[in-house]
């Protein structure tokens, strides 16, 4: 929320937000899709390696986060929209909720896991 205070600009006439500024091209979308597909393939392969514990989980989580960021950033235009004036408001709304959800529920799971 603090972010948006510095970003605040009611005096500037806002523009409609997505007609002029750059969105990815068709080619870029395909590239992202191929990367996503490759990561998914690696994930599946990794899960068949017979690893256990952190060796299994940590790389999978990392790949999951990368996929998440690519979809949110490119397909949902977050990384493009956020370059607009005040575009960071999107981060505020969505990012705050993401962070909140992750933190809160990690604490809950930790409380159950360790019972301390």
């Amino acid at each position: 929320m603090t972010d948006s205070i510095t970003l605040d600009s009611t005096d500037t006439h806002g523009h409609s937000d997505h007609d002029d500024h750059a969105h990815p091209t068709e080619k870029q979308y395909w590239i992202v899709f191929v990367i996503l597909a490759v990561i998914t393939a690696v994930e599946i392969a990794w899960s068949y390696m017979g690893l256990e514990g952190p060796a299994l989980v940590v790389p999978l989580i990392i790949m999951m986060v990368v996929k998440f960021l690519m979809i949110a950033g490119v397909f949902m235009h977050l990384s493009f929209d956020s370059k607009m004036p005040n575009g960071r408001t999107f981060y505020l709304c969505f990012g705050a909720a993401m962070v909140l959800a992750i933190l809160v529920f990690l604490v809950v799971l930790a409380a159950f896991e360790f019972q301390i």
Partner: protein
Amino acid sequence: MAVIEEPLALPSGTTKARRPLGAFSRPRNATGLVDWLTTVDHKKIGIMYGMAAMFFFIIGGVAALLIRLQLAAPNSTILSADTYNRVFTMHGTIMVFLVVMPIGAAFANYLLPLQIGARDVAFPRINAFSFWVFLAGGLMLNSSWFLGGGANGGWFNYAPNNGAAFSPSTGIDFWNLGLFIAGIGSLSGAVNLITTVLNMRAPGMTLMRMPVFVWMTLVTQFLLLFAIPVLTAAQLLLLLDRQFGANFFNVTQGADPLLWQHLFWIFGHPEVYLMILPAFGIVSEVIPTFSRKPIFGYPFMVFSGIAIGFMGWGVWAHHMFVSGIGPLSVTAFSVATMFIAVPTGVKILNWLATMWGGKLILNTAMLFSIGLVTQFTIGGLSGVTHAVAPSDTQQTDTYYIVAHFHYVLFGGALFGFFAGLYFWWPKIFGYKLNEKIGKWNFWGMVLGFNLTFGPMHILGLQGMARRMQTYDVSMGFNLWNLVSTIGSFILGVTTLLLFVNAWKSYSEWKAAGRPNVGADPWDARTIEWSIQSPAPEHNFDVTPTVSDLDDFWHQKYAEDDEGKLRQVATGDELAQPGNGEGVHLPAPSYWPIVLAFSLPIVGYGLIYSLWFCIPGTLLTIISIYGWALEPADDLDIDDHGHGPDQEMEPAV
């Protein structure tokens, strides 16, 4: 749910709007009841929120008096154990979800657009839907009184006592589905109001020029937006457990009942703050106005509110200190809880600093505000004493806690709301409330309130546990319980003085030929006082341009050559005339109320027979499409200022 369907609300673009089917047309020239049922005006919706909340307030209040009557003497048999359990559960549920939250929503709805200089909220139809769906959920919850008795699991409804095995009657189903439906309203309301505040401010109204009330409401709505889904998830699990035999809270299958507690309190603690923050916002408007000084330390007021909003997410487990979460968790949450007292304390001190050196006008609104500052302080201090976890192991689930949260929610939130009612009443209805009755109202409530809840501190420390249908003579609780019961009746009667006051002030005003109270009866500070009272339907004739915090006040007062502040104009001189020529307003719509009341039909179906869900679901789907395809306006009405070639877009 309907929010999901928003994108279907298609703007008609350059194509000329037409009426797809007769039924989809907007209500025309609605008057009377139909006007209220189909309105999308944020002010009317705000008033309806307030009235609905007052209606539920009376039900919840009667439940409270029944509780106190039962506890007035030991071994009393006025209420049976079963009835008592239902009454205290419904009292808590109604007061939290159907009284304090919607009063906050009422003020937010009425005031937000006025205080930021907007014509309406961002999505007027969703706004109407939020209200109706809240009302539908609330009525469904209360219908359980007649359909087998209210819920009996406590407002927190801990698993596994909320399961079908331990509570086979339908009360908890009504609790679950009623709040589920009301929660949809809170969620869509939150999306709507946040968008409104962020996006619809008048030119020059930067975030740091917004009134504190707007800020507190913004924080509140963010809390709602993120907290309600967690409760919804918990309620979904409970619904599946009770109606479809799932095992989420079935201990024989190895389930952990603490899951419910975590989910409930992750919602429940932000809930506490979202009940109190709007009241903080209200007194932050009232105290400066009647101290004739700006709020002391505006940035601190704003940031402490934001800090409370953030920290409110990290303290939920302080409701669970004795539930066996382990010493490390207890330590962490205990320390976090202690520190949430800091921003709250900052607020209290800043209000006092605003009064410092001020010239106080002690009318009823101001008295209630000072009432909040003092009574809430008591609740805050008792809160710190049981933030100390070892101490909480003695105090939790005793009347000490009951005293604490009533000081916070009644002495805090409700006193704040009463201050707001007395303050904004002339803006809303065009006449002032009677000051004499108002003062009786205030002093009676202070007396009754402290007599009711003050002794509960003592009872709690003497070991009287909560949610007890009865107690024994040998426990030594007799005296203070009697005092508390006497106090509760004083409180009940004096609270009703508000209604007496409203009725009497109105009759006198009417008898006097409805004299104009003026745009600015209090010499107030924010821009909602720059329009006529009652606020005209179109709010502002021209959108104001804001250049300062408390912009309206700065237009009235300016420094003269010697640097002394002088009144350069009165509020009424500056006020807009209320001429709505050329202002286009969104047309009313049937669909919000139809959609809202289709949901309880599905709810009753889930409780009684799944077949019943089919018509409910059909109606829901029809309403969503009806909503989406509805033309922007009643096509037969001439819309001022907008030619037919200009686009007409459905207000979402």
